[in-house]
């Protein structure tokens, strides 16, 4: 605020100020001639500082409370529970009797020791003295050896360079060697003495030590599990210290696990970024057998022989998770990882539980369980069949049979023969009336017809959008039929003979093996997929109404003549 008074260059001096009228009269006795009372400012300062402190604490807490940490804590609890179960199991199969017996024997040897206490004490004292001596002697020997080695170098150097003092050095070396050997003798003697005393002591202790070792072996399972339990649960104070803000840079127990896949990339614009799969931050039991029956996210992978385990064809270290499953590799929260629900129910459940929503920015969300085999195709696209991916295989099969690639461009299907027959000789085989009926609804004629129905579907029958579809459909079908017949150049075929015996014919059809390839009539057993998808052996249902007898005669006689 400027201290200059207005009207600086002005003409008249301002009159003597009256008390400021526009300043509210609140607290006038406290604040005196100031705008604010200092006391109340102190109060506001205190309140705002407290708020700042609280919001800073809140900020740190909000920053540290991560979804994955919750799962890791849950998993530790699960591990503790499992270890405790193991301990219980071990104790139930524990041979109490044998252990008690050992315990009694150990007690007995201890009683014996009591009787020879004086002797043992004496030996113990001897042992202590010898150990002290051994330390000193050993040091003397090692030091003198060090001196000897360095003098030896000096001597050899002098000899090699033919120095004048070589002789003198040689004498000195000999003297040192003698001293060293003395120490060595001393050392050997002390070692032997110590061994003798130990042997003497073992007479009293040997049996007890063996028994004690035996007892420890019996308890090995217990102590291993106990150590595990202690590592898992070192106490609330240690755990919270290790994971406390700032201190967690050292060795936190809650940490992000990741598999770095240096050969598999995320395709970003102009940059391929190595995948870093952090899924195991929450899916902690995914590669361990013992979590098969635990809830997600800890559940074991259902097929460890095929995936994740080091002996499988897809070990975790080189394939990770997202290369097959999809999803955001670096994400560490349920929603960000782009989990995809397998059903509408699950979607609703997730929305409620996790606030799940589809993230439009994740390029490849996870494949829902129903489509999981699609992940295989990323790598297994060269072979006609992918082993153990039945759904994927049958899907690719369907594409081939139904000819999706006729209209839709599909990589890998460019050079496959079209699924429909050659129509250039159609007028020699069919009549117009049949073609019209077939086009109107192929399934009316043959229940397993693969050609779709194009007319009289839900969106082009009756009258809608100002179109009389019935009229239009009929017109279109007629036009197509006429077009096909006008452009058809039928082969000249000899007239077929007639007058066969239907009963005899039936007998021949049934006996010579026509049914090996052909079927006649609708296939009722829809579950029998291979029957529906058979690709050779035309279904002969209703053939009589489709083609002339003469054509059938010629076809059966020599198919190549009809369709070269």
């Amino acid at each position, binding site marked *: *605020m400027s201290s200059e008074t207005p009207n600086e260059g002005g003409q008249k001096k301002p009159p003597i100020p009256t008390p400021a009228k526009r300043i509210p009269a609140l607290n006038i006795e406290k604040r005196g001639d100031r705008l604010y009372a200092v006391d109340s400012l102190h109060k506001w300062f205190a309140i705002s500082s407290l*708020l700042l402190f609280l919001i800073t604490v809140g900020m740190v807490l909000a920053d540290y409370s991560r979804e994955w940490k919750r799962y890791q804590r849950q998993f530790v609890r699960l591990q503790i529970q499992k270890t405790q179960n193991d301990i219980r199991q071990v104790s139930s199969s524990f041979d109490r009797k044998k252990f008690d017996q050992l315990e009694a024997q150990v007690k007995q040897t201890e009683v014996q020791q009591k009787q020879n206490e004086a002797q043992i004490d004496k030996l113990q004292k001897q042992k202590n003295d010898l150990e002290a001596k051994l330390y000193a002697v050993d040091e003397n020997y090692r030091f003198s050896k060090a001196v000897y080695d360095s003098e030896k170098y000096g001597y050899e150097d002098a000899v090699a360079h033919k120095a004048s003092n070589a002789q003198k050095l040689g004498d000195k070396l000999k003297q040192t060697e003698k001293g060293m050997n003395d120490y060595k003798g001393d050392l050997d003697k002390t070692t032997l003495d110590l061994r003798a005393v130990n042997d003497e002591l073992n007479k009293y202790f040997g049996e007890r030590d063996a028994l004690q070792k035996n007892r420890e072996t019996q308890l090995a399972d217990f102590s291993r599990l106990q150590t595990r339990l202690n590592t898992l649960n070192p106490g609330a104070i240690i755990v919270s210290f290790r994971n406390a803000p700032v201190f967690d840079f050292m060795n936190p127990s809650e940490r992000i696990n990741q598999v770095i896949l240096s050969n598999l990339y995320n395709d970003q614009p102009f940059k391929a970024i190595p995948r870093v799969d952090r899924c195991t931050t929450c899916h902690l039991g995914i590669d361990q057998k013992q979590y098969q029956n635990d809830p997600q996210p800890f559940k074991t992978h259902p097929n460890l022989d095929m995936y994740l385990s080091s002996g499988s064809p897809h070990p975790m270290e080189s394939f990770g998770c997202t290369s097959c499953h999809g999803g955001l590799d670096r994400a560490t929260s349920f929603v960000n990882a782009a989990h995809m629900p397998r059903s509408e129910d699950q979607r609703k459940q997730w929305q409620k539980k996790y606030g799940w929503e589809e993230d439009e920015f994740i390029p490849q969300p996870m494949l829902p369980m129903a489509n999981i085999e699609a992940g295989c195709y990323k790598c297994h696209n060269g072979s006609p069949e992918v082993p153990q991916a039945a759904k994927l295989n049958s899907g690719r099969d369907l594409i081939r049979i139904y000819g999706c690639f006729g209209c839709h461009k599909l990589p890998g299907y460019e050079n496959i023969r079209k699924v429909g027959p050659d129509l250039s000789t159609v007028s020699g085989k069919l009549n117009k009336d049949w073609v019209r009926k077939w086009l109107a609804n192929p399934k009316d004629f043959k229940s397993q017809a693969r050609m779709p129905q194009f007319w009289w579907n839900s969106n082009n029958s009756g009258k809608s959008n100002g179109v009389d579809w019935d009229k239009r459909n009929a017109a279109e079908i007629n036009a197509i039929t006429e077009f096909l017949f006008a452009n058809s150049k039928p082969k000249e075929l000899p007239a077929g003979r007639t007058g066969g015996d239907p009963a005899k014919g039936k007998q021949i059809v049934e006996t010579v093996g026509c049914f090996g390839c052909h079927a006649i009539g609708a296939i009722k057993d829809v579950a029998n997929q291979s029957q529906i998808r058979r690709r050779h052996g035309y279904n002969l249902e209703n053939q009589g109404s489709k083609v002339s007898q003469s054509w059938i005669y010629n076809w059966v006689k020599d198919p190549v003549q009809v369709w070269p």
Partner: protein
Amino acid sequence: MIIKEIINALTAPYYLITAAAILLLVSLKYPHKFYTNKVAAIVFGGMFLFLGLSILDPEFRKIVTKPDNVPIVGMLFLVPFFTWFSMREAVVNDQRSTDGKPLIEQEETAEKVLTWPDLVYTELICMVVLTVILIGWSMALQAPLEDPANPSSSPNPSKAPWYFLGLQEMLVYFDPWLAGVVFPGLIIVGLMAIPYIDTNPKGNGYYTLKDRRWEITTFLFGFLILWILLVILGTFLRGPNWNFFGPYEFWDIHKLEALVNVNLSEYIWVKGLGTGLPKNPLIREMFGFLIVLGYFLLIPPLLAKKWFKGFYTTLGPIRFHVMTFLLLCMAALPIKMVLRWLFNLKYIIGIPEYFFNI
């Protein structure tokens, strides 16, 4: 709803900017009518009511509650409030000085300037409270991150940071070299030049409108209409493809606007003279050059002779010409806007061959 339709239509840039400009100028002409507590209560009450009712509309809510648009909502209230507040003080002061009474600031600081604790301590408390608000805000509204940057697919609408949306809005009317380079440069240079151009000593340390009517009007027009309003327009009313969308309109990416803008040369040669466009761009655009040169060379002397005689004598020729140059540049934006709205004028000089378009 019919009211929503009307509001959608009325917020179109030409109505919005024109109405805001007229409102500002009228309010500065009759300040004692506009900058009163009663008018403020009505205006801000109306704004809150508008926001409260509009937030029920899903399209409006979607845009207004976007985390990066929230500060602009704050600005929508704060800028008018402080404008109103300072103008109210100015009106009171002006009244007092005509009545011969002491000014507000004189009363407050007659004997001493209240620095401690009135200024410094309150500033400290303000600082702390603002930090609290910012931390709380950043915790409550997550940063609106989108997918990784991809040069081959830019987001639509592709918007500048909010404080540059005024510049982006200028791109509707001018080429990038003007709207993105020359005008921003002139804004900075012009703001720096103000203390050297403005020799009016009045208004130092106190609020007044009467003593500085010209300066305040110019500044408020530039700041409120040509900057703040364009930021608000760019934030809330510009959707995919930088098309205009009313506040209740769905941001349809397929919305089309007829681009039927025409250059001045086409107006003159094709429509006026009935001939084709000359091949030589300099001949083709000579009328545009004449107009632009006339705008910058003829108008200043004219002003000096006629309407701005007083300025010319008080400022001297150098100050005066710098001021008029900056002023004309500033006026170029609303002039181009009006020409665009009325005549679909694309460029006054349009030489796309050399990327020289004005």
